[in-house]
């Protein structure tokens, strides 16, 4: 994906984003409501400049090396048990590490 030699991943993510944008507009205008009849409000992301940028970069490094992002780690588990387990243990350690450090990191 990051060699820019293949469209596939861009097609998947881009396609999902474009269609989701349509859904988001439908949510916003109340045309599609949730199962309880309430208006749908996507959660606001936490504000900040450094945290999404730096966090995103760390994530991108892990993603680029292993080819796995968050949900796929669990999908891979259904595919190839043990390697996925290592990825998962790593991810839990990483999340745990973040939890410990969260107050001290720049935002």
């Amino acid at each position, binding site marked *: 994906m990051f060699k820019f030699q293949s469209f596939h991943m861009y097609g998947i993510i881009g396609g999902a984003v474009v269609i989701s944008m349509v859904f988001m507009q439908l949510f916003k205008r109340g045309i599609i409501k949730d199962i309880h009849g309430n208006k749908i409000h996507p959660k606001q992301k936490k504000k900040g400049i450094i945290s999404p940028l730096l966090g995103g970069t760390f994530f991108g490094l892990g993603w680029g090396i292993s080819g796995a992002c968050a949900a796929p780690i669990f999908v891979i588990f259904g595919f*190839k048990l043990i390697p996925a387990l290592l990825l998962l243990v790593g991810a839990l350690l990483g999340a745990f590490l973040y939890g410990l450090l969260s107050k001290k990191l720049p935002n």
Partner: protein
Amino acid sequence: MDFILEPWAWYVGGPLIAISLLLYFYFGKNFGASTNFETLCTMAGAGMFSDYFKKDWKERDFALLFVIGLVIGGYLSSTYLIPNQQIDLNPTTVNELTDLGFSNVGAHYFPEEIFGEEVFYTLKGFLILLVSGVLVGFGTRYAGGCTSGHAITGLSSLQFPSLLAVIGFFIGGIIATWLIIPSIF
């Protein structure tokens, strides 16, 4: 019906993801995968070490079902829907990866060099997976989301932090692809 057994084109995968997002929101939940790492940590007792994990995980129990669903999905598709793992890669990509020492590029979804038995016998194999995992877990929590939460949910709802996150993903991914993979293989 054979087309089900071929890799599904991007114009099938992308919309399916969007439909998945729709279902999530319809049932009153948010669409994102990385919070599961936090939830799993909390369930495992991380609250003992840090206040950050003193969350009520019972209200996130749908997240567990999501995770189980992902695993089942991976299992079903790998067992029944993928008779051969040939990937249609750009020939230049195949050449470049072969030069780095990868063999049979494009013949497996998961390169043996990263996901094969090296994992058990070499420290390098073990560390590659573990460290990648740590980067993914730490990064998604620091950024507040992963490709599902930020790239898809965040961008489609036009939130600026998500744009920053996606820029970060690309910076990291490019560094990994152009600098790190060539230097460790």
